[in-house]
């Protein structure tokens, strides 16, 4: 019967991912809509196999245009049919949007997810109807079989596969052709061909998709293999959890038998081959070939020692060839197109493509096929579209639960069998799990170890007991009960399992943990020594993610809950235990807490910073005299630098009873809070209120006192009798660009620029054209200040992309609103001038090159792209250093990056002298400085009491404040927007831009808090109502 000539083909993905997201309903809706409109003879609907882009499912492609629609649900169908299939227009709402730019990309071929892929094994997946053999044949299917049977001897087939260099896609990468030859040469009349489709890695669905989307490619590969090695019977071992795959295999086998392509006398020749499906019960270990064979034979699925190898003694003791689904599926292509064609793809020693199931914290999850040798960064950032929600890439696990992780430093690694192995990961069958900064690598390793030990068959001792012991040690670490020697124990067990376990499952079980240890040993040590889980995952170590994310570990849930109840003073009191700068941080804090807020997983994080600001503003009229907890002590402590770190350290030491004097070089106290952050973000009178609070604790602040000029460390300690000194001198020196013309008049370095403005000596900017260089907060502050001072044109030139800017997103947005012109991927190369005065900046475009250690692409100069921005002023703001002019002879040493050398107790190289803040960490934020101020005070106190210098871990104390509102009420509540000074009113002044929120808004906002801290209590078996007395504790020092 002649088929109708269709004018359009709609290919609806019927893979597992899209089926899960509802593609069956979509397909049915499409069918009925087409029928309703009587388009059955014009539009053909095909339910295909997996198209790979599972994250966007259900997906479909409309041909001949190649329009790619994603997340198409039944309710979208009438509109889609009307617009696209009747009127020929693209429905933009259903097209794919680029995750960062939100640009619509309507055509399949142009979507970055697909452009870098090379689909060989998956070439039919998503394109043909997997339940129709004729579609496979129409795409060249079974040509290779006919070529093999009629034009090639078995030896020639084996030779072709050998020459192609195809390596086993199950993961080990053994040469497929060589394996075939072993089986071919093994003596015996009865031989078997077996396909390992026991795909069991969590999150992996490569084999499944091949079978579901293109089952005949597997059959054809197996039939060719059977012909080559001389087998008459074969088995496909597929797990019973893959019902769709099994169904399609059964259909494919029946159709192939009907077409004379399988069974007796294939294509009329003497060659006969019968294929059976064996459904596995889902034991992971049955992916190991000897266990798989045992399972087919009906025995307990357990491996046995090799030799003898299955090629010699396999199924029922007969020579048996076992390959992975993808290995077989490659074979028809190799036979049809030739070994040379295949060998030319990918890498010389790893030819062909690799199929990965890309999952985890990556924008474009799904199934991808890429040429071997593509870099890891290309997979994750180009095909995968990067990390969602602007989070940082942390690691990627390859090879499934027995593989290993790779970190940002491996993003330029070429992915193939050998390079992954050399890097300590494995190719495995093709799982690729991406994780971001919110993943705890200890917990991550524990997840895989839990899986592997649960799947251990228990046959050999190293795997059965060793895996269990390792898991026990790791569990102990995640519960904060670890000991430092545990890391050595883990390594010993790992070595023993690797050397002694019977099969790959046992040998590779420690792999993920060893890889995690290699890259992230610090995280393990943090769990063990500091009892901290920075990612906020390990429940026993984390009160709430917000508190955990805060460098000063401010008790966020408690004060948010108290604010909700209108108990502002109590809330502020809790805040001040960890951070005395609530007014300041309520305005300028980057709010690490919000980036980890659990509510943010659902919709948007709680506006914690705004809540803090309201709380502090509300109490602004009540002067705070910080409590002094301990009796007055005789020892005097000098703090050098009155920035957030110095003032916090001074306050905490005063609260412990010490007599503290702060020496400040500048005429005003406050450090960067006073002379770095512009007044439109932090009004000076607000700052001064909090500095006055600290003075009320008995802290004396002496301004205009420069270290090395007005006094020295020697003079403090030897002459003036200070028993300890805290260096909190900050990072107040601008880094130089190091380019020609930087000494011309008009070049004004960022920190100096902001300081001069703050101290009342702003340069005359009226009508000037200004170029700011850099992407951090100083650059944005400088640009926005220049604009306020009357600059006619303000450019920000940054060598990377907007997403890579370290400045806070809201600052960048505000600058954009104020009309600042941003030039990304641009870098200055020369300052141009006349008569000693600058007239412009020559800049050069940058291209994105390799990935650097931070996971960002390195900018590479584009030759010949130079151009000039005419400008009167250049403000380089590319980083800050520390003034080290005083260090000679002081006994205090510095690192190469100008930070001070300190040990883990924040002690410098000179006894009695400690350091904190930017001088230790490099340029950071107020809250990080406050955290160091808190810490250094504990260390100084310990030193003064004992004469010893030791890292003192502090476990934050906490209170439990009851939840007093109804969970149901605020499910729909939205995060409020901060009211701002209109842009038109900002020019020519430094009035505060953010205006604060009103009481009702704030109290409602507080109620959005999910109080995940209480969940933690429950997980520890503690009731949170009523509050147990022993939970109301002060910070304790362990």
């Amino acid at each position, binding site marked *: 019967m002649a088929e109708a000539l269709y004018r359009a083909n709609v290919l609806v993905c019927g893979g597992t991912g899209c089926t899960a997201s509802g593609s069956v309903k979509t397909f049915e809706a499409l069918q009925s809509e087409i029928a309703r409109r009587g388009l059955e003879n014009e539009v053909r609907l095909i339910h295909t196999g997996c198209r790979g882009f599972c994250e966007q499912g259900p997906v479909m492609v409309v041909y001949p245009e190649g329009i790619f629609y994603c997340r198409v649900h039944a309710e979208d169908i009438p509109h889609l049919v009307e617009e696209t299939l009747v009127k020929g227009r693209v429905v933009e709402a259903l097209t794919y949007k680029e995750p960062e730019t939100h640009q619509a990309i309507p055509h399949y071929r142009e979507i970055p997810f697909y452009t870098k892929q090379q689909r060989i094994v998956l070439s039919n997946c998503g394109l043909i109807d997997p339940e129709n053999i004729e579609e496979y044949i129409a795409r060249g299917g079974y040509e290779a079989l006919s070529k093999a049977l009629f034009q090639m001897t078995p030896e020639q087939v084996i030779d072709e596969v050998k020459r192609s260099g195809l390596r086993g896609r199950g993961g080990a990468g053994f040469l497929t052709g060589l394996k075939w030859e072993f089986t071919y040469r093994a003596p015996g009349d009865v031989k078997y061909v077996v396909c390992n489709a026991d795909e069991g890695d969590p999150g992996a669905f490569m084999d499944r998709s091949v079978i579901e989307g293109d089952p005949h490619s597997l059959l054809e590969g197996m039939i060719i293999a059977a012909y080559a090695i001389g087998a008459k019977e074969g088995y496909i071992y597929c797990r019973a959890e893959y019902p769709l795959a099994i169904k399609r295999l059964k259909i494919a086998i029946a159709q192939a038998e009907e077409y004379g392509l399988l069974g007796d006398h294939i294509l009329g020749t003497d060659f006969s081959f019968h294929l059976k499906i064996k459904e596995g019960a889902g*034991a992971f270990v049955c992916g190991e070939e000897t266990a798989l064979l045992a399972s087919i034979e009906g025995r*307990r699925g*357990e491996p*046995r*020692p090799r*030799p*003898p190898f299955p090629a010699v003694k396999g199924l029922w003791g007969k020579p048996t060839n076992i390959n992975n689904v993808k290995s077989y599926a490659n074979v028809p292509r190799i036979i049809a197109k030739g070994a040379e064609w295949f060998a030319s793809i990918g890498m010389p020693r790893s030819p062909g493509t690799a199929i990965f199931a890309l999952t985890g914290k990556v924008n474009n999850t799904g199934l991808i096929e890429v040429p071997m040798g593509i870099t890891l960064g290309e997979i994750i950032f180009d095909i995968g579209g990067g990390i969602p929600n602007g989070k940082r890439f942390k690691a990627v696990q390859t090879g499934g639960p027995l593989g290993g992780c790779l970190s940002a430093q491996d993003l330029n690694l070429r992915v193939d069998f050998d390079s992954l192995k050399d890097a300590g990961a494995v190719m495995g069958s093709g799982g690729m799990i991406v994780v971001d900064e919110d993943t705890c690598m200890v917990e991550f390793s524990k997840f895989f170890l839990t899986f592997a*030990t*649960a*799947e*251990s*068959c*228990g*046959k*050999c*001792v*190293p*795997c*059965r*007991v*060793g*895996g*269990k*012991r390792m898991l*026990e040690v790791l569990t102990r670490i995640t519960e904060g009960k670890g000991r430092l020697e545990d890391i050595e*124990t883990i390594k*010993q*067990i790992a070595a*023993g399992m*690797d*050397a*002694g*376990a*019977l099969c790959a499952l046992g*040998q590779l079980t420690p792999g993920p943990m060893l890889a995690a240890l290699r890259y992230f040993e610090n995280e393990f040590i943090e769990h063990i020594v500091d009892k901290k889980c920075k990612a906020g995952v390990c429940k026993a170590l984390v009160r709430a993610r917000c508190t955990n994310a805060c460098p000063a570990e401010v008790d966020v849930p408690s004060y948010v809950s108290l604010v909700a109840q209108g108990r502002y003073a109590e809330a502020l009191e809790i805040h001040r235990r960890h951070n005395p700068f609530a007014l300041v941080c309520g305005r300028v804090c980057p709010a690490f807490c919000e980036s980890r807020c659990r509510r943010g997983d659902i919709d948007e994080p709680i506006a914690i910073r705004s809540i803090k600001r309201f709380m502090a503003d509300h109490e602004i009229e009540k002067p705070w005299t910080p409590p002094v907890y301990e009796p007055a002590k005789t020892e005097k402590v000098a703090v050098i630098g009155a920035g957030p770190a110095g003032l916090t350290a001074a306050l905490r030491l005063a609260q412990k009873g010490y007599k503290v004097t702060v020496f400040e070089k500048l005429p005003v106290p406050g450090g960067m809070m006073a002379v770095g952050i512009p007044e439109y973000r932090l009004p000076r009178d607000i700052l001064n209120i909090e500095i006055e609070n600290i003075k009320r604790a008995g802290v004396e602040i002496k301004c205009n006192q420069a270290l090395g000029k007005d006094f020295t460390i020697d003079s403090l300690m030897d002459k003036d009798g200070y028993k300890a000194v805290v260096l909190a001198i900050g990072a107040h020196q601008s880094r130089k660009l190091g380019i020609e013309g930087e000494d011309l008049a008009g070049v004004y370095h960022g920190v100096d620029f902001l300081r001069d403005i703050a101290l009342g000596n702003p340069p005359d900017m009226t009508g000037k054209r200004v170029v700011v260089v850099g992407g951090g907060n100083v650059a944005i502050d400088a640009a926005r200040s220049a604009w306020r001072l009357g600059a006619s044109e303000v450019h920000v030139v940054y060598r990377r992309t907007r997403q890579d800017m370290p400045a806070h997103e809201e600052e960048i947005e505000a600058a954009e609103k104020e009309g600042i012109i941003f030039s990304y991927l641009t870098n200055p190369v020369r300052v141009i001038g006349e008569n000693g005065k600058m007239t412009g900046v020559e800049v050069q475009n940058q291209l994105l090159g390799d990935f650097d250690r931070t996971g960002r692409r390195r900018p590479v100069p584009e030759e010949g792209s130079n151009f000039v921005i005419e400008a009167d002023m250049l403000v380089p703001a590319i980083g800050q250093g520390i003034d080290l002019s005083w260090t000679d002879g002081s006994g205090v040493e510095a690192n190469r990056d100008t930070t001070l050398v300190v040990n883990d107790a924040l002690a410098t190289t000179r006894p009695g002298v400690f350091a904190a803040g930017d001088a230790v960490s490099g340029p950071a934020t107020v809250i990080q400085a406050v955290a160091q101020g808190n810490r250094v005070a504990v260390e100084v106190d310990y030193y003064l009491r004992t004469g010893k210098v030791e890292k003192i871990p502090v476990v934050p104390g906490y209170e439990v404040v009851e939840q007093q509102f109804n969970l149901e009420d605020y499910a729909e509540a939205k995060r409020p927007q901060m009211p701002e000074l209109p842009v038109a009113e900002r020019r020519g002044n430094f009035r505060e831009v953010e205006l604060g929120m009103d009481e009702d808004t704030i109290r409602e906002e507080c109620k959005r808090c999910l109080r995940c801290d209480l969940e933690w209590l429950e997980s520890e078996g503690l009731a949170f109502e009523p509050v147990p007395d022993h939970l109301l504790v002060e910070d304790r020092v362990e």
Partner: protein
Amino acid sequence: MATVNITIDGQKIAARAGSTVLEAAREAGIDIPTLCYHPALPPEGACRVCLLEIEKQRTLQPACTFPVTEGMVVHTRSEKVISARKFVLELLLSDHPLDCMTCEMAGNCELQNLAYEYGIKESRFPGIQHSYPVDDPNPFIERDYNKCILCRRCVRACNYMNGVEAIGVVYRGFQAKIGTAFDGYLEDSPCEFCGMCVAVCPTGALIPKQRKGQGREWEFKKVTTTCSYCGVGCQFDLNVRNGRIVQVTSNWDAPANHGLLCVKGRFGWDYVHHPDRLTKPLIKKDGAFVEATWDEALDLVASKLSEVKEKYGSDAIGVLSSAKCTNEENYAMQKFTRAVLGTNNVDHCARL
């Protein structure tokens, strides 16, 4: 005999072709420790105590399964090998009750011997230990899986020697244990209580209930004897302490049974010390049995038989012998019947 040349620890050996490294080594008098290996059972390669370093192999290989090949070079005591063995032993001991003081198998326990040989006092890897109840109600075999090292010798003995397949491995990973189908009692399984599992168990996990508290291993005197139950002629070793049988153990060199036994041979010896057992002949006098001497009894039997034969003829006599007697005894009995009594009326009870 075809041989292949291999080198073990520097010693050149002409090994039997087709043998394993373990067999070749033992035949050459080189000791390689084992736990799951038993010469009467197919090798398993599970315990990893016999691991060796074989040149050109990426990982350590088990001696018990690895076949010898020409030119193979093997190291049985390299640092790597010793540390792998110690690792395995320490892991096993980390999940083993260290109650050797009261364990019935102390002195004859292969795990204990290896721990001694490798100087392992305590494990570097302590952790959770199993605490299985020891409560199988059957009369013969005590199953204490807390002492089990999962060498699976019992499973192989059950499957390959007796062909009963009453037990296997149940559960997975650390939870794996030896059990019947659905992990129940032996009585509810096809178990025939042949006790072969007990015979091959290297530790105190499986012991005959009869021997509990009956003495230490080193106090037992082994007396090889032939089973008195049927005519197969199975031999075994009676373990005797203070003149009393304590248990029966397999004698692997026995020509008829190669160590195999059935429930009767292994556990059915309690009649030996039974108080009701006749130790002296009895003669019925005035309706009651009265103890007599052997001479008295034999004289009585001889006179009565002669009397019957004279009066009624030889065929008036029938003789019934016992399967519990040896072949030699039964031979003597039929000879006596035919040659002395002069009749063919002889039979025996066939079996017990």
